[in-house]
């Protein structure tokens, strides 16, 4: 039986299955977006709860995951607005940073870069962080991210570009010694 149908038919069983099939992955994503476990679990819980209670509103057009992320992002946004300080809204302008793409082959081992990338993404402002989690952890496409975050595709692309610049800057700052960013690849 389709999971959705199972939830509709037998809410308890369906909910357990939802947790089994989607819970861990959603939790992982929430953890990466929120940055702390307590919130992540709370958001996971509330996302799944809302999903089950509003399962009849799931259009089955997108994948269930996409819909869950949409709920998750809405919850995070709502909370962030309350807190205001940490609003999940993109900054108007890009922080001042150049497009420095470290030449990883020479300067970084893959492992070092992986660590640096994870750290850099963790340290990004929340909206950029969510964007990159969807992009690189969930491997979602631009339209999917746009749908989840309720943003136009063009904005997603622009912010994605900015987020990449931020991460590249952080990588080169944290890992590369000052002035050794010799790998300005691909810049015309």
């Amino acid at each position, binding site marked *: 039986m389709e999971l959705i149908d199972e939830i509709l038919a037998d809410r308890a069983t369906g909910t357990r299955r939802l947790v089994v*099939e989607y819970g861990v*992955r959603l939790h992982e994503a929430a953890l990466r977006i929120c940055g702390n476990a*307590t919130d992540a679990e709370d958001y996971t819980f509330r996302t799944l709860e809302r999903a089950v209670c509003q399962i009849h509103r799931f259009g089955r057009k997108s994948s269930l995951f996409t819909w869950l992320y949409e709920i998750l992002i809405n919850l995070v946004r709502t909370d962030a607005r309350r807190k205001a300080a940490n609003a999940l809204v993109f900054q108007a302008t890009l922080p001042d940073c150049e497009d420095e793409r470290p030449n990883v082959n020479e300067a970084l081992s893959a492992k070092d*870069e992986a660590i640096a990338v994870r750290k850099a993404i963790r340290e990004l402002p929340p909206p950029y962080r969510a964007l990159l989690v969807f992009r690189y952890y969930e491997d979602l496409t631009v339209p999917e991210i746009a749908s989840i975050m309720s943003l136009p595709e063009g904005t997603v692309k622009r912010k994605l570009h900015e987020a990449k610049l931020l991460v590249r800057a952080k990588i080169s700052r944290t890992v590369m010694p000052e002035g050794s960013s010799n790998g300005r690849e*691909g810049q015309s």
Partner: protein
Amino acid sequence: MNCEEAKRLVEDALDKRLSGGVKRRLDLHLTRCRDCRRFYEAEQAEHSRWFRAMNDTEAEPSHPLPPDFADRLVAAVMANDTADKASFFRRLRLPRWLKRVACFALILSGAAFAAAVVVDAVVGNDGEGEATERTQAREGTGGDDAPAAPAAMSDIPYVPDVASVPSTEPDNQQPTTDGQLKGENEMNIKHRAAAALAAATLAASPASATELPWTGGDATLGDGKVTILCDENGIVTNVTAKPTGGEELRITGDAMTFADGAKISLAAESGTFADGRLVFANDVTAQGALTLNRTDGAFPIWSGNRLVGVNWVNAFAANGSQANDWSVHSAYAIPTDAGISENELPHGIYRPISANILACNRWSGKYTFSARFQLQNVSTGYLQVRMLTGVRTSAGLYLPNTDTWSTTKYRTSTASDAQWFWPNATPVDGVTLQYGGDEYKFGICRIIFQRKNTNMGTIGFAGEATMAGTVSVGQGVRMSVMAKADSTFAAPEFSGYGDVEYARNSTLSYTNRMVHSTISVTNATVTLNTLGAIPNYCTVVVDNGGLLDVSRASGSTLDVKTDIEVRTGGRMLSNASYGTTWKFARKLPFKLLGGTLECNSNGGSVNYVYLNRLLMTDGAMLKCNKPFWVANDSEGYWTVGGTGAIVNGPVEFLSASASAIRGAVVNVNDDATLVFANTLAYNSGYPHVDFIKQGGGTVVCQSTCHPTAIAKGMTVQNGTWKLGVSNSWLNERPLILDGGAIAGADNTANAVGALTVAENGGTIELGEGAALTFADSSAKAWSGELIVKGWHENTVRFGTSSTALTEEQLAMIRAEKPNGKRIRLCLSPLGYLTRRGMIISIR
């Protein structure tokens, strides 16, 4: 496209969702612009690296949800209080906190219980220092600010082993999933594998009897429903589960690592169990062969028990590539969206062992799948792999050794067959279904390829194989059947719209139609041995070494609506007891492109071939042991396109009806030769055939030619009709030269009917010592010039007197000397063509 546009497309390009036109323009730009090409390469590489970085499961261990998570969620959704989440949480928290206190008290006082509780060090790369900082921060806030829900007493199916771990420690240092420590009252503990861990036996059946928060060592659920045995290193060697009907047994907690040769057994607690599931809530890593075993016998129903891996990310990662070997005694199900991502399954060998199913069911999404399935001893079981839309698969099926796969089961009731499905999946070229071993017998099985316009790849048979099932090939699908020498396909049914290629020395016979397909036979034998077996609207190509056998037990009419091409080295064979009647569709050419068509009638009758358009090229051969009748309904047309094409058999032309008067046309191209090595005759029942020779090439009659009842006679419009042996032209039937030549081979003597020379003239060519006699032709109206080459006295004769040709006709005749000089001729009193002067002198 300029550089700016190209760079703007990079995200779409990474998503692989550029339309064809845009992609082409981008590709074009990238081939021209070095900067952009580097930019794209760098972006692509970075994308891959970052994706790997974010999905590095070693560096970022997974963070399981707390064991009571599902219970809490169910309670919440059942309460259905969606209006006010905050109040809901507050309501929910209080009783659980109370429970926690109760539980804590129980643990402190419950010295009788023993369990191993080890602090989980599941922390990220930040290290413990950061975790400690966070812990302190959290402790500072007290825990009244949304503390994570503690486990209810009923949710804790174990008690700490106070002997091995100080009972106070867990309270203070309980890690949560991401390495942060929660408040001191938290009982939500995860465990790590510990080598020295003592066996932890659950003393009482926990309230949530279906869940075992595995501790990393030997563990048994209270009523023995799940037992986990580990070696001294905490590596799992055996999991036994006894689910009852419909029950789900969950093992939460740490990721399991299974030792090489480990077993997972599902045994019914009592009777049979349906829909029982063993669920691993976390990654499972196999260090080698892992056996999934059902121990209670019959396993008849698809919807039966399942072993479910929630997150199998590491399932095959342990030893890299092909090292892992899964023996699946039981249904092994990977549920929808199980978190399988690209290249996570390529590395296993899956072996369903008996009477069971390996169900990789309902995979959807962008998964690449190239695992190998190895069936052995599945005499009563079957393998089912269903892949839905969006799955990219290059999965292989490998049937090893000498096992027999005579499966008769399929899950759906409509077909009692095993099936391979690749419906609508995104194509990957080169899918291989490989049947290895010395001998293979397929019972009823169906292999279905439904994808359109793809190169389906190969079904390979490494040894002798008989196959009584179906291979259905979707429209536009190309499929190769590769087999070693002496493979035999007994009688599979081919249907659908695809192309099937038979290569190597495979033998294929099939009983039913295949339509709209291309069948190519190379070094293979394809046998069509039942009425109606000729594929319709197909292209059948018999290539070098191939044999297309269309023999049938009894002669009956066969309508051929397919395009058959027999190439050099290929052979098409028709053996029939009573002769075969083939009706090739009108205007559909039968192409003997250097190949051989052999028609043998074993019952003494003839082969009727309504073969209106025959195209033969260099080296083509038509062989028959009985008369081979080529009917011409209206437009019989033979074309010989090369030198050395041979019709080697008694060939007879007949008209289909008295009104069909257009006759057969043999077109022998310039420099080509068609040899009738046996009798060329007509059918006396159809006296209205015109026989026309066209093309600049030569027809050679090496045997008797019977143009007796030809109404107008033989017309040679171009090229040469050569009488290769004496008496090869019987019954004095008329001959019309209208641009062509009649030739007599060296040292032959032939008698031809009355000669007409039409508008385009004609030629008589005489070999050394050749003689030609025509019937009295004086009644024929000549309108063209007749040239006689190789003329000598007493070699060409008309009738028996000097009046066999009229003066007007004689005026049109010239003998051409070898030096090109032409002389006028007249008839001698005995009708021989002779010099005019000689006649005069005689008179």
